[in-house]
């Protein structure tokens, strides 16, 4: 409990900043929607004239973005990216920060096993991503309602947030694994953010080149599609199951690796 509390306290500031950034993105994004809706321009036709590559990179596929649900579904890509960076960094830092700050000698010479330190730390991570998720949910419903005659599309947004949570959990586990295997925090965060970048590039490549479609399974960014969640109300069961399983495996590996680790001063 003491480790959990300490970790929550240590991360509260950064969590608030992440949440504020997220709220601002949703606010600003929905303002743009208002711009589209008011301009009377055929936005779909306008975008159709853009090269496909650009549309893909910005996550604007074939959805009708003049409808609020369609417009909001485009956000999912940004949510995924932000959440991925947030969760990965949290995981990578939280398991390795004592060594980075040279206080591993302090906490790991206490009468506790290593998993008794790592578990509350990861639990704090889960709570942090959950709060981030809930704030995203609340801000989404609030700002959608403002542009949709008071209807916040709670069901659709809930489903989207559930998908987001599976991704967050995956990235938290991924970060933690890097943190427990690699030599120090710096290498762990560098490698983890590199991988997130790689996942993103791969997801764009898959969208651009049909031949690469089989690579979809290797990038979590292709596990859920914003349009499917927001328009078709569908959350891929297989994707969720794979992500949860892989996350679990990563968490277990984190414990095993951390237990074997020679802690540096």
């Amino acid at each position, binding site marked *: 409990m003491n480790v959990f509390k*300490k970790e929550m306290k240590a991360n509260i500031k950064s969590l608030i900043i992440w949440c504020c950034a997220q709220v601002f993105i949703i606010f600003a994004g929905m303002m743009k929607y208002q711009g589209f809706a008011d301009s009377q321009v055929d936005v779909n036709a306008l975008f159709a004239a853009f090269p496909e590559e650009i549309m893909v990179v910005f996550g604007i596929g074939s959805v009708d973005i003049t409808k609020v649900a369609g417009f909001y579904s485009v956000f999912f890509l940004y949510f995924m990216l932000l959440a991925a960076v947030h969760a990965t960094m949290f995981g990578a830092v939280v398991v390795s920060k004592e060594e980075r*700050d040279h206080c591993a*000698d*302090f906490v790991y010479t206490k009468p506790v096993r290593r998993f008794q330190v790592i578990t509350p730390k990861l639990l704090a991570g889960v709570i942090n991503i959950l709060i981030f998720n809930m704030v995203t949910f609340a801000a989404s419903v609030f700002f959608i309602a403002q542009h949709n005659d008071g209807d916040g599309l709670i069901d659709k947004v809930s489903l989207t947030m559930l998908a987001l949570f599976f991704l967050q959990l995956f990235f938290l586990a991924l970060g933690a694994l890097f943190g427990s295997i690699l030599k120090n925090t710096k290498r762990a965060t560098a490698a983890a953010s590199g991988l997130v970048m790689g996942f993103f590039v791969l997801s764009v490549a898959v969208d651009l080149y049909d031949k690469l479609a089989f690579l979809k399974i290797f990038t979590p960014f292709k596990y859920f599609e914003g349009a499917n969640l927001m328009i078709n109300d569908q959350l891929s069961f297989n994707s969720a199951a794979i992500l949860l399983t892989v996350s679990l495996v990563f968490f277990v590996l984190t414990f095993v690796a951390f237990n074997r680790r*020679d802690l540096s001063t």
Partner: protein
Amino acid sequence: MNVIEINQLTKYYGKQRGIENVSFSVEEGEIFGFIGPNGAGKSTTIRALLSLIHPTSGSATIFGKDCIKYGNEIRRDIGYLPSEVFYYEHMKVREVLNYSASFYDNVDTSRIQSLAEVMDLDLNKRIDDLSYGNKKKVGIIQGLLHEPRLIILDEPTGGLDPLMQQKFFELIRMENQKGATVLFSSHILSEVQKLCARVAIIKDGSIVRVENIRDMQKHNYKKFTLDYRGVIDVHHFNLEGITNLTVDENTLHFLFKGDINRMVERLQGQNLMNLLVEEPSLEEIFMHYYQKEEQP
């Protein structure tokens, strides 16, 4: 009963040597010195005892239990002061100490106050505002707070002024009199001399010897200083048992270990102005250990 038993403990970091076949034991209630130059393997041994690192081979037990397997149980009764003290920088001293206490059952937290008074430490300061010496004090308090049965000190006095060192030694002696066993690692001999009865000497990752400090000083070595009237015949002292032989103008210094009668025989007929036979300081004996190995 032995509180610590180390048996052929070996640690390699990849191919780099940490320690090799380290074996010694520490008896209950003693203050045991662990001495050697920086990089000899003192911290590696201690970190293995605390299961911060995993030994490559060999084993160690504390309170009769395996260090790695029962690490969490053992550490309930260990107080540890690391050589480099770092704590959560943004926390206050009091918060760090309370956090530390929260890992133990039944800690008398009023000890925080009393220990802080003895060590003259302000509990309301933030860790990052503290000087190195003051951080060390935080380390000392968090190490002694839960009244451990075994106190492990890794180079504890660096950064403390002489007055504080004195207070610190008193504190350690007091805990020792109350029954705590102490493992005291240092590269400063005089402080080991002040506190310890037995020492293990480590060099290049291996234990050179485990000895009684008094035996080391009194029974084994004599320090000879010979003032000559004329030219010194150094080869005359090519005798087994002589080490640290140095010539300083007309004066010859050396340490001698062995049958004193043979030395008296050897001294006969020497044209001396003065002869001094003393107890060597631990420093000099220590130097001798290190030089012995370096000779071809």
